[in-house]
């Protein structure tokens, strides 16, 4: 694989191993961190006066799959703004909000990221997702298949067949090579397929006799039963609706009793879009306070931000009805794409403007959530790329988290009415570098059950980012611009022990691996579930069951994660 590397005299932030800015050496051999290596045979990287962290880990970023690709096809005008030439190392491509796959990998890598998970995929089109991820270099990747509006799921729940449900989820993850379970607007997308725009939490889904609450609880239990590495990943109902913080809290609270300690069992994603107060768009406000209070008082839940960054971007989600309402409101081009028996999809390009009241409230809401949740281990930094903004804007978000001054600069320029309604001015909290290492590395890795990611301990995957920031000279609260610049282009990115970025430029292209979960349920249960599934498969789908399965030969560096289920 690779030779030995010593990263010398770096200022190391490795919160998982309680290292907080200590100056030390990090040794790498054969793609893993080791105690020490022979100096003579090692390549030395001088990291003095530089920050050393584990490679970045993104828990939620729409980088590949049918909806991302439709969004690419939808917007040639967007690509024209950022055309990338082929080089000796890089393939050509396009940037902006829906970058081509190669560019996605390169840009992430140049920011020091090494692991990115794609969070919403129709199982029926997983071969497409995987094939795009195969073409997304530089990163370790995985997918979260969608289950929130799945007919089988709703039927198992209606018939109270919980073991079979777990077996079905295990089978699907294995068949389509998914990693975690994602719910998007549970029940609401099925209703949308008949044109119904809003779904109540405790009202049965049309023609299926189960409620969104039951879907949430049932799937949360199934994930628990299967011992999946990541908790239930939820995009709640009523996303993008004034007053929806109540639904967010209700969603988290609906599974509280299932928690038995340890890691969180539910991850509420892109909370910014789900944490509004007010009753309509005119009196919209941030509801972050309420959500933060709940998350602070409970340990069964984690969140990621979905921060909005003022820019032209593209919204895309499996939440078809949300995108329908969005296009009605802003009148832009609109894609809706429903998937039989499983899920939906919507896409609307958008430009977030500082002067726009709603957009300004959105910006405030995300940051308030980040600053009001006390424990950074419960928070992951995301923009829900590209929904809140492109992942290339992460350094901006990091600067806002680290600097009251940086936030203030923007706050002064946003819509005045929104400004007056913001609590940001009074939130003095400023993230430390260690906090940043938590919300961009250690935290997401822990939540994803990636034991070998997000830290620099011996035995972990040697994914490293080195940033040109001298903590003795740079106060991030003041010199946030320096931090932003440094984080946009890593001095070094090391992936599996190979130097892939140097001085902010890609120096080597590597394919990365694709994780998926193989949760083993008892043979008898698996067999009976599968035979029943086979008997009705052709009634549900327009493809044969054998062709639904994604073969491992179609995956570049297929990396199954094996766990044992409780059934």
């Amino acid at each position: 694989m690779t030779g030995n590397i010593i990263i010398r005299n770096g200022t190391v932030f490795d919160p998982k191993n309680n290292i907080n800015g200590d100056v030390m050496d990090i040794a790498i051999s054969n793609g893993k961190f080791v105690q020490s290596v022979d100096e003579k045979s090692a390549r030395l990287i001088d990291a003095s006066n530089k920050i050393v962290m584990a490679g970045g880990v993104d828990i939620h970023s729409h980088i590949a799959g049918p909806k991302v690709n439709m969004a690419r096809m939808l917007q040639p005008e967007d690509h024209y703004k950022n055309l990338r030439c082929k080089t000796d190392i890089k393939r050509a491509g396009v940037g902006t909000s829906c970058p081509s796959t190669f560019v996605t990998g390169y840009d992430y890598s140049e920011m020091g990221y090494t692991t990115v998970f794609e969070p919403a995929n129709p199982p029926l089109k997983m071969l497409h997702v995987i094939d795009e991820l195969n073409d997304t270099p530089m990163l370790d990747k995985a997918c979260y298949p969608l289950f929130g509006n799945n007919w089988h799921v709703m039927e198992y729940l209606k018939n109270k067949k919980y073991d079979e449900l777990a077996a079905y989820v295990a089978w699907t993850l294995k068949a389509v090579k998914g990693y975690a379970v994602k719910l998007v607007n549970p029940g609401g997308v099925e209703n949308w397929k008949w044109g119904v725009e809003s779904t109540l939490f405790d009202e049965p889904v049309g023609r299926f006799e189960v409620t969104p609450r039951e879907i949430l609880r049932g799937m949360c239990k199934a994930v628990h039963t299967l011992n999946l590495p990541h908790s239930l990943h939820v995009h709640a109902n009523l996303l993008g609706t004034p007053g929806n913080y109540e639904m967010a809290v209700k969603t988290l609270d609906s599974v509280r009793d299932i928690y038995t300690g340890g890691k969180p069992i539910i991850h509420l994603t892109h909370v910014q879009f789900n944490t509004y107060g007010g009753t309509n768009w005119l009196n919209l406000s941030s509801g972050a306070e309420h959500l933060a209070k709940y998350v602070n008082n409970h340990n069964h839940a984690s969140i990621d931000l979905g921060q909005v960054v003022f820019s032209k971007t593209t919204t895309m989600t499996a939440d078809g009805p949300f995108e329908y309402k969005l296009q009605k409101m802003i009148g832009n081009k609109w894609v809706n794409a429903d998937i039989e028996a499983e899920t939906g999809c919507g896409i609307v390009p958008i430009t977030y403007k500082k002067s726009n009241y709603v957009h300004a409230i959105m910006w405030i809401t995300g940051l308030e959530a980040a600053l009001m949740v006390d424990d950074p281990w419960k928070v992951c930094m995301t923009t829900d790329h590209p929904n809140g903004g492109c992942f290339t804007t992460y350094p901006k978000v990091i600067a806002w988290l680290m600097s009251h001054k940086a936030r203030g600069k923007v706050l002064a320029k946003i819509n005045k009415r929104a400004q007056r309604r913001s609590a940001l001015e009074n939130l003095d909290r400023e993230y430390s570098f260690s906090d940043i290492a938590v919300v961009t590395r250690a935290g997401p890795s822990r939540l994803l059950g990636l034991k070998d990611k997000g830290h620099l301990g011996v035995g972990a995957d040697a994914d490293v980012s080195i940033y040109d920031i001298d903590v003795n000279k740079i106060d991030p609260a003041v010199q946030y611009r320096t931090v932003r610049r440094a984080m946009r282009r890593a001095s070094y990115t090391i992936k599996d022990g190979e130097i892939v970025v140097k001085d902010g430029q890609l120096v080597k292209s590597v394919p990365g691996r694709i994780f998926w979960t193989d949760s083993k349920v008892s043979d008898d249960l698996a067999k009976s579930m599968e035979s029943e599934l086979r008997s009705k498969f052709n009634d549900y789908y327009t493809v044969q069951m054998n062709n639904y399965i994604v073969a491992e030969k179609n995956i570049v560096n297929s990396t199954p994660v094996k766990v044992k289920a409780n059934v």
Partner: protein
Amino acid sequence: MDIYQDVVCPVCGCLCDDIEVNVENNRVSKVKNACAMGTTKFLNYNSDRLHSPLMRTNGSQQPSSLEESITRVAEMLVNAKYPVVYGLALSSCEAVKVAVELVEEIGGVIDNQTTVCHGPSVQGFHEVGESTASLGEVRHRADLVVCWGCNPVESHPRHFERYSYTVKGRFRKGKEDRKLIVVDVRNTGTAKIADKFIQLEPNKDYELVNALRTALNHEQIQCETVAGIPVEEIESLAETLRTCEFGALFYGLGASHTAGKGRNIESLGLLVRDLNNWTKFVLMPARGHYNVTGVNQVCAWQTGFPYAVDFSRGYPWYNPGETTFVDILRRKESDASLIIGSDPVAHFPIGVSKYLCSKPLAVIDPSNSMTTMAADIVIPSSFAGIESEGIAYRMDGVTFSMKKVVEPPEKILSDEDVLKLILGKVKALKRLK
């Protein structure tokens, strides 16, 4: 005898995946479940094969070695200042990936059959987007099916029985629960079985859609007929569309190739968008070549653009009309072409075909065609989905892994492998330079 089940049919965009193929002594002996088009392909694919590479010397095509032909193609591409690589709708996605890399390497243009097929539909999509669905959604829910300028009965024979009309779905028993409306200029096979046939005047698609949308907005239409159809009939059609429970509008080249082209599809997109304010409605192209959707997908994720991508300045650039093959030929701008599994000499208007033949022309194809007859270099290839594996996309984007059921003839490589050899040679030549 070997029996292969759940074979994916590599003919049309329906990509039926329930085909059973019997193979005896490396020959397909029997085909079950396929339509006439699919059966014919599996049984007769071998009938007009190319058996050896050919090169034109002194005006006539002579057999040559694979290596020599690969070298000649690579030289042709490296020497060209504006080469075009065209085709791939009958290739696997794996082959498409190699082709995109090759075109990046040579600084050329890559275009595919979309350009003379649903290219205008893609342009309509750029303008307004679309409300669409996987075909199973239509199967389970649609109580109204509209075929606009498409003729599935004759060109996608199993479309109705598997996906859209006669098929039984979860919420629909079959055609008794659905209504079929056909909008076309002629009384096609599909029109003949429709519950309602709206025969419009040629080139008046946009006018009719505009009138329907105006009627949906309850605005007065100040003329007696539009596109040859009385306004009352248009208003009643708008009412039918508006009041269904789940409508599906399939469109074909009858809409995308008539006057206004992409604007027609854009207007259908707007019609369906408007209908979603009343009910649930989806729009879908009925796509022809089995993997034309796949080429668009791979091109889009690798380059940002679905077809007609110009790498001449190092980055991908796209603008139909400028970077599309027909227009490049019409302006006489290309200086070499490599065609993969397509027959543009037969299918492009005569003026541009002539120009195509006047510049160096190479072809990779399993079978003889007018283009192979006109070419300077011909390299035979295997049939993807029959003689080699690979990924293909159905017209609604559902993805399949195609099977290999027989061995290709001796020494015949897949187009993916031929392209890899050309790419290798191109890289070697560029290093020498």
